[in-house]
């Protein structure tokens, strides 16, 4: 219930940019995921770490499941299995998919205070292709973008090509 509420709160100013002002977070991060995409699932521990590391710093996270047929029960099961502690939303009509311009799970979109997109793409470079994993990521695109925003700068890299499961078009 609370996560639903949070999601609506977050989505509201996105839809009505004129209302976004004042005590707003510095950035909002939408993380597009799926319950059964292996690359997206691999990121569950990193997503929890990201939230811990940034949440006190006026950066907000929202997990978005862009799948029309998904039920809330399935999502709750997914969150429990992966010990995910982020608020979520099921984007059945792909409103957020369009707004963020994403194509893939996992893919992130970082919105600035006036809802401009500051970064979109990979979380990091752990995967360079399907089945090609590094031992550890050597580029941390999302963290770098958020750190730049916290410093008042623009992210040096604003887009990267995501890798994972492609989001299906709505029927």
């Amino acid at each position: 219930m609370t996560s639903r509420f949070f999601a609506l709160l977050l989505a509201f100013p996105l839809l009505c940019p004129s209302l976004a002002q004042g005590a707003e977070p510095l950035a909002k991060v939408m993380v597009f995921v799926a319950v059964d995409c292996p690359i997206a699932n691999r990121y569950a521990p990193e997503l929890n770490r990201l939230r811990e590391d940034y949440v006190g710093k006026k950066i907000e996270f929202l997990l978005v499941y862009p799948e029309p047929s998904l039920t809330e029960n399935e999502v709750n099961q997914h969150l429990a299995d992966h010990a995910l502690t982020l608020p979520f939303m099921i984007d059945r009509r792909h409103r957020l998919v369009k707004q963020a311009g994403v194509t893939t799970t996992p893919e992130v979109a970082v919105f600035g205070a006036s809802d401009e997109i500051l970064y979109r793409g990979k979380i990091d470079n752990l995967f360079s292709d399907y089945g090609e994993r590094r031992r550890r990521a050597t580029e941390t695109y999302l963290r770098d973008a958020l750190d730049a925003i916290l410093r008042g700068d623009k992210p040096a890299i604003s887009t990267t090509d995501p890798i994972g499961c492609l989001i299906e078009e709505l029927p």
Partner: protein
Amino acid sequence: MKAFFALFLLAPLPVLADGEPVTYHRDIAPIIYAHCTSCHREGESAPFPLTNYSEVSRKARTIRRVTGDRYMPPWHANSEVTEFLNVRRLTAEQISRIDRWVSAGKPEGDPADAPDAPVFTEGWQLGEPDLIVTMAEPYEVPADGPDIYRNFVLPLDLAEDKWVKAVELRPSARGVVHHSLFHLDDSGTARQLDGKDGKPGFSGMSFRRSGSIGTYVPGASPRKLPGDLARPLPRGSDLVLSTHFHPSGKPELERTTVGIYLTDTPPARKLEELQVPPAFGRKAGIDIPAGEANFTIRDSFTLPVDVEAYSVSGHAHYLCTTMKMTATPPEGQGPPRILLEIPDWDLDWQDTYFFAEPLVLTAGTVIESVITYDNSRDNPENPHNPPKRVKWGRESTDEMGSITLAGVVLHSDEQRELRLSLQKQRTELFAALGRTLKDKKVLARLPAIVKRLDRNDNGILEESELPRRLREALLLRLDQDGDKSLDGSEIERLEKWLARIETGDES
């Protein structure tokens, strides 16, 4: 209804070459059932099921992408130059059919057109195994972090020697078990290492392998060895599973069960494994400078006798990029043929490739392996960042490299000749052994040394009595009858050999 028809007429019709529209039930389901469902179904290794229209259409765009770049179905050997059994590879036509279906908006079509869904055997694939063993305790695979290689010891407690026809592995967490090698250990060294760090099993390959009874990779169904072939499983051996895990994002508990299919009768001809280069490339000069993008090792072996080959498989770690094994028959006996070509080596898919028909390779045929490595920063799988010099070693961050051809001698009276040649293949190994024994002045003290080592005082040096570091090489060089011990005449051979080294007649 009318509206539906109108839409249908407006949409560009997805068509096959002969003008027919592409539909799921008629055109796509046969591909999925034949090439995907074996792994993509409940209880199997793949991350989601692909068994019906809704499951396939939920993942259609991803399916188009991964089939288009041939990531799926996983298959790494070039099956155009060598004919293998159970080739998991789509034709260009199948790939483009999937592409056209997705572009056309994934039309479902008429369920009446669908082929019968595949039927899979529940439970043990080859019937009830003769021996079933399970890990004593589950091992926890963490949610996160690099891949894990872990060995688990499963005591078999066999009172007699047996022969293995097949092995089936049943992981409890299939999604994270990427592959597993079934080693044997008859020295008890693995048992000693087991659980030392407080968790089930142990890491590293520092136990003494005394044999192997097969491997598991996702999607490969267990098969019985053909004819009377079987692998030796000597009494007293422990089974050591060397399992490679991929963390999946959530913690998983793995408790593997293994089913072993046995026979009491030894095969007439022994299944030989010709490794080129031998010993996983230990002496093949694997020493790759940091940053080197194209490092090559090659080695060859000439068959002393006619051999009937069944299968071929490669082994290397993350830096390896390509592998190739070629057989060049003696002058005038036909052109060289490629036995295995892996243009894009992937440690995750260490399949054993079975030839479509057993291959007869005549005496004098040269078997050559060429293996390449990329130790540059551009290789995303490079475990070192920045790149480091990498040498042969047992850890996954070291390298190995060899291709194994498995087969039998064509004429059963030529077994010994093949064995001897395989031993000679290890001359370098023996040269090093010879130097060590010479440096230690073993010859002068041989009787005293034998007396000291022979703890049970039976005049025979059993494997367990030999110095651990030299065991493998000593037995390979001297154990003529293959009984894993050195009897009087074999010790005499050692003496003669050392004498020749002393006089400089042999290195």
